[in-house]
C-alpha cells in the first residue's frame, strides 16, 4: 500500500500527470485573464455613476453604529480615540492597494482571503442566519462603498 499523497508516476511522464494538467489549465487561464478582467471583474469598475466622496467616506468609516473601519482598524492621521487593533493599520493603504483592490476587499474580502474575519460590506452571499432586520440590504450601499474607497485612496504616504 503506497503512502497516500505519493502517487506513483506512470512511465513516460517527467512530471505527475495531474500536475501537468493543472499547468496546462493555468497557462490557458492566463491567456484568458485579460478577457475576464474586462468582462467579469467588477472591482475595477465603480459600483455607481456618482464619483466617490472622500469626505462622506470619512464620516462612514468613523461611524461606530455602522460596523465601520475604525472599529477594527486604526488610522493614525485621524483624531478619533479608541481605534481598533483587530485588523491591520490603514495608514498608507493607498500605496499598498489599487482602487480596484480596495473596492474588492470592501465589497467582499472573502474573494481574496476566504477565511478573513472582515465582514463582506456589499454582499450577503452564503451568509448564515442573517437577522430579518438586516437581510434586505447589505452593510454598505453601493455609494457607501464608493465613498469609503475614495477616502481610503487619500491615505497615501
Amino acid at each position, binding site marked *: 500500500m503506497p503512502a497516500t499523497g505519493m502517487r506513483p508516476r506512470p512511465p513516460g511522464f517527467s512530471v505527475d500527470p495531474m500536475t501537468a494538467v493543472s499547468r496546462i489549465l493555468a497557462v490557458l487561464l492566463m491567456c484568458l485573464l485579460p478577457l475576464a478582467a474586462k468582462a467579469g471583474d467588477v472591482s475595477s469598475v465603480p459600483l455607481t455613476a456618482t464619483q466617490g466622496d472622500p469626505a462622506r467616506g470619512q464620516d462612514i468609516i468613523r461611524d*461606530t453604529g455602522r460596523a465601520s473601519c*475604525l*472599529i*477594527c482598524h486604526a488610522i493614525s492621521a485621524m483624531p478619533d*480615540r479608541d481605534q481598533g487593533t483587530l485588523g491591520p493599520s490603514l495608514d498608507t493603504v493607498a500605496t499598498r492597494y489599487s482602487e480596484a483592490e480596495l473596492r474588492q476587499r470592501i465589497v467582499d474580502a472573502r474573494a481574496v482571503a476566504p477565511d478573513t*474575519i472582515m465582514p463582506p460590506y456589499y454582499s*450577503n452571499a452564503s451568509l448564515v*442566519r*442573517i437577522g430579518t432586520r438586516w437581510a434586505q440590504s447589505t452593510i454598505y450601499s453601493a455609494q457607501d462603498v464608493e465613498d469609503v474607497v475614495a477616502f481610503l485612496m487619500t491615505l497615501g504616504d
Partner: protein
Amino acid sequence: MHRLALVLALLFPVAALAEPMSGYQFMEPATQQLQDDDFLNPAFFLVERGQQLWDGDWPGAPEGAASCRSCHGAPESSMRGVSARYPALDSATGSLVNLELKIQSEIASKLSAEPPQYESADLLALTALVAFQSRGMPMDIPTGENVAGWLARGEEIYTTRRGQLNLSCQNCHGEHWGQKLRGDTISQGHSNAFPIFRLIWDEVGSLHRMFTWCMEAVRAEPYAYGSEEYLALELYLADRGRGLTIESPGVRR
C-alpha cells in the same frame, strides 16, 4: 533544539497556557471594584430579592410545602455547588436544563404555581440566589457520553460563522481575545459571572440575553431564551470555562 522544546513543555504545560481567563480580567479597574464590593455591586440586589422569593409562600402552592425553603431549607447549604454543575441533564425528562429552566420547572411541578417568565426580575433573582451559593467555586460540569451530543452541538453553534458580519463566537472570543474593538478589549467570552449587571444595558440580564445581544451584534437571527441551541451553547461554555471561579452575580461592561 529538541531538548529545549521538551524543557519548555515541562515548564509550561499546554494546559497552563490554555488556562481560561475570566471576563473580570479584561475589565477596567473601576468596573472590577463595582463587582468586588457587594454593597456597590448593582447586581447584588438580585440575591436579596431572590432570598425573599425563596422564603415566601407561592400563591396556589400546597400547604406545608408552599416555598422553596419548605423543601430545600437554607440555600447556603442546599444550593452550595449546584451552579458549578449546571447546565445538567434532567433525570426525569432527559433534556438539558440550566438554572433558570430548573427553577421554573420546580415552581411549576413542586409548588403548583405559575413560574416567573424567562428574563423576568423574579427569575433572574432566584437564579442569582442559587448561583451566588457557588461563588468562589470552580465551574465543573460533569462530562460523559450522555452530554457528548449536547457538547458537540454547542461547539458547532460556537464555531459557526453567522449573521451579516459573518463572525462566529470563536472568531472573536477564541482567536482574537485581548485585542481592541474600538476601545473595548475582547474577552474570552466566559459564562462564570451570570446573571450580571451590564453597564451598557444599565440593568441585569441572563446569559441567554447576552447570547442574543452577541447574535444581534453580528446581525444574526438570535435563538429564543431557553432554546435547545442556547442550552447547548451554555453547556459548551461551561466546559470551555472549566475551572474558572464563579463570580455570580457579576458586573460586566
